[in-house]
C-alpha cells in the first residue's frame, strides 16, 4: 500500500547516504529489542533467539546495508562489480542453498543417543503421529488463503524442529523465513506451557500413572548399524529427506563408532555453534520491515501455535491407542514427546507424569518418541519438498 513511499525513501537513502528510518523499521527495532529481552531475561531458546533478534535489528538499520546484494553493471559489454554487497548477504547463502540446517543436524546427530529408540522401536510410531500438526496446520493455512508452498512452510512449524523448518522454508518460501523461524523457536521455548494442558485433557488419571518397564540395554553393534540403516532406508523412500537425515545419522555414527572422538566433539560443539551463529543472524536478517510487518505474520504465529497443539494431541492420542493395544503398558504421556524439540518435550512428559506419580520416571521412555520425532519431521519435510519443491 505504502510501497511507492517506501521506495522513494529507499532511493533517497541510496542517493544521499543519510540515515532515514521509516516507522516500520523503527517498529521492527522495537520488536527485535523485545525478542532480545525474551532471550536474555526469560531465556527463551537464547542460543538461537538472541542471534535471530540481533540479526533482525541489523537488517532494519537503514544505512547499514548488511543484507544488500552485490550489484553489477555492464561496462563495454562486460559485467563489472559495482557494489560488493553486505556481510549478511554472503552468510545468508548458507541458508539459501540449504547448507546450514543439515550441518546443524550433523551436530544434533552427534549429540543424540538413539539408544532409547532402538530399545523400544514402537516409539517410532509416536514420533510419526506427532507430525499431525504439520499437516493440520498445512490444511488450515490453505483455508486461510496461503498458497501451497507457504502453507507447507507454515505447517512444518508443527514439526517443532528449527533446522528442518528453516531448511524447508528456505527452499519453498524464503520470504516467510523470518516469521516462521521466530514462531518455531518461540513456541519450542514455550513447550512446557503449551503441552501440559493438552496432555491432561486428553488422558485419564489412570493412564498418566502408568509406570513403564525398564528399557533393555542396547548393544554397540546395534547403535552403529542404526544410523547406516536409517540413512539408507529413509533416503531410498524419501530422497529429498536425504540431506537432513544423512547428516543427522553421520553425526550419530561419529558418536557411536567411538573411533572419531575429535570429529564427534567438533560436530557437537564448535561446528554447531559456528553454524548456529550464522544461521541465527541471517535468518533474523530476513525479517525486514516490508516482509515482516504484514497480516500474514500474525496468521503464521497463530497457525504455528495450532500446529504445536495438533502435534501434541496427535502424539498423545496415538499414545492412548498404544496404551489400549498393549493393555496398559505404555504411558500415553510419552506421546507428546513425539514433537521433536529435544529434549524439552521429553522433559515435559517426565514432569507431567511425575505430578501424578512421584516415583514414575518417564524421561528415558519419552526420549524414544522424542528422537523418533526428529526423524519423522525430517521425513515430513522431505515429503513436502517432494510435493511442492
Amino acid at each position: 500500500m505504502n510501497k511507492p513511499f517506501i521506495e522513494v525513501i529507499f532511493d533517497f537513502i541510496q542517493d544521499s547516504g543519510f540515515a532515514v528510518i521509516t516507522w516500520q523499521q523503527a517498529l521492527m527495532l522495537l520488536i527485535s529489542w523485545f525478542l532480545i529481552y525474551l532471550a536474555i531475561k526469560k531465556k527463551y531458546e537464547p542460543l538461537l533467539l538472541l542471534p535471530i533478534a540481533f540479526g533482525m535489528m541489523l537488517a532494519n538499520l537503514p544505512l547499514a546495508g548488511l543484507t544488500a546484494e552485490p550489484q553489477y553493471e555492464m561496462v563495454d559489454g562486460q559485467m563489472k562489480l559495482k557494489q560488493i554487497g553486505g556481510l549478511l548477504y554472503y552468510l545468508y547463502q548458507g541458508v539459501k542453498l540449504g547448507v546450514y540446517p543439515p550441518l546443524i543436524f550433523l551436530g544434533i546427530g552427534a549429540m543424540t543417543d538413539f539408544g532409547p529408540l532402538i530399545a523400544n522401536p514402537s516409539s517410532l510410531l509416536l514420533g510419526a503421529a506427532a507430525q499431525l500438526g504439520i499437516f493440520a496446520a498445512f490444511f488450515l493455512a490453505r483455508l486461510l488463503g496461503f498458497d501451497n508452498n507457504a502453507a507447507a512452510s507454515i505447517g512444518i512449524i508443527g514439526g517443532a524442529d528449527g533446522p528442518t523448518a528453516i531448511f524447508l522454508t528456505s527452499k519453498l518460501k524464503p520470504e516467510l523465513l523470518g516469521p516462521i523461524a521466530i514462531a518455531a523457536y518461540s513456541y519450542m521455548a514455550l513447550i512446557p506451557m503449551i503441552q501440559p494442558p493438552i496432555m491432561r485433557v486428553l488422558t485419564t488419571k489412570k493412564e498418566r500413572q502408568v509406570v513403564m518397564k525398564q528399557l533393555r540395554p542396547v548393544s554397540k553393534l546395534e547403535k552403529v548399524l542404526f544410523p547406516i540403516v536409517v540413512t539408507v532406508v529413509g533416503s531410498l523412500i524419501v530422497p529429498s529427506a536425504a540431506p537432513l537425515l544423512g547428516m543427522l545419522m553421520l553425526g550419530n555414527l561419529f558418536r557411536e563408532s567411538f573411533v572419531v572422538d575429535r570429529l564427534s566433539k567438533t560436530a557437537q560443539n564448535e561446528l554447531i555453534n559456528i553454524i548456529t551463529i550464522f544461521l541465527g543472524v541471517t535468518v533474523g536478517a530476513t525479517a525486514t520491515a516490508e516482509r515482516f510487518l504484514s497480516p500474514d505474520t500474525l496468521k503464521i504465529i497463530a497457525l504455528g501455535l495450532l500446529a504445536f497443539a495438533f502435534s501434541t494431541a496427535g502424539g498423545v492420542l496415538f499414545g492412548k491407542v498404544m496404551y489400549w493395544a498393549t493393555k496398559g503398558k505404555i504411558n500415553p504421556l510419552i506421546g507428546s514427546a513425539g514433537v521433536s524439540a529435544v529434549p524439552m518435550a521429553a522433559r515435559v512428559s517426565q514432569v507431567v507424569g511425575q505430578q501424578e506419580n512421584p516415583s514414575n520416571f518417564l524421561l528415558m521412555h519419552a526420549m524414544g518418541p522424542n528422537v523418533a520425532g526428529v526423524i519423522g519431521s525430517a521425513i515430513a519435510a522431505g515429503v513436502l519438498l517432494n510435493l511442492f519443491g
Partner: protein
Amino acid sequence: MDIVLDSVKVMVLGMGTVFVVLIGLVFIIKALHRLTDKSASKAEQVFEPAQKSDAVNNAVQLQERVEEDEELVAVIAAAVAASLHRSTHDIVVRSIKRVPAITPIWNRVGRQEQIVTRL
C-alpha cells in the same frame, strides 16, 4: 472445495508416508536386534575370560601404585574436606579413579591460553 480436497490429499499422503517409513524402521530395528542378539551372545562368551584377566591385571597394577598414590589421596581428601567445610577426619577415601577429560580439545586449548596470557 478444491482447496479442501487437495489439502486432505496432501495430509493423507504426508502422514501416510511418514507412517510407512517409520513403521518400516520399526521392523528393521527389530530385525537388527534379532541379528545382533545372536552374534552378541557369541561375542560375550569369547570376551568373558579376557575381561577377567583384565580385571586381575588392573588389580595387580593398582597394588603396585598404592604407595605412590598415598600423597594423591592426601591431597584430594584435603581438597574435598576444604570444599565441604569439614575436617579430614570425617572423610574416608575408599578409592580414587581418574575420570578422562570430557571437555573438547579446543576448549582445553582455549583455557590454557587464558591461563598463559592472564596469569
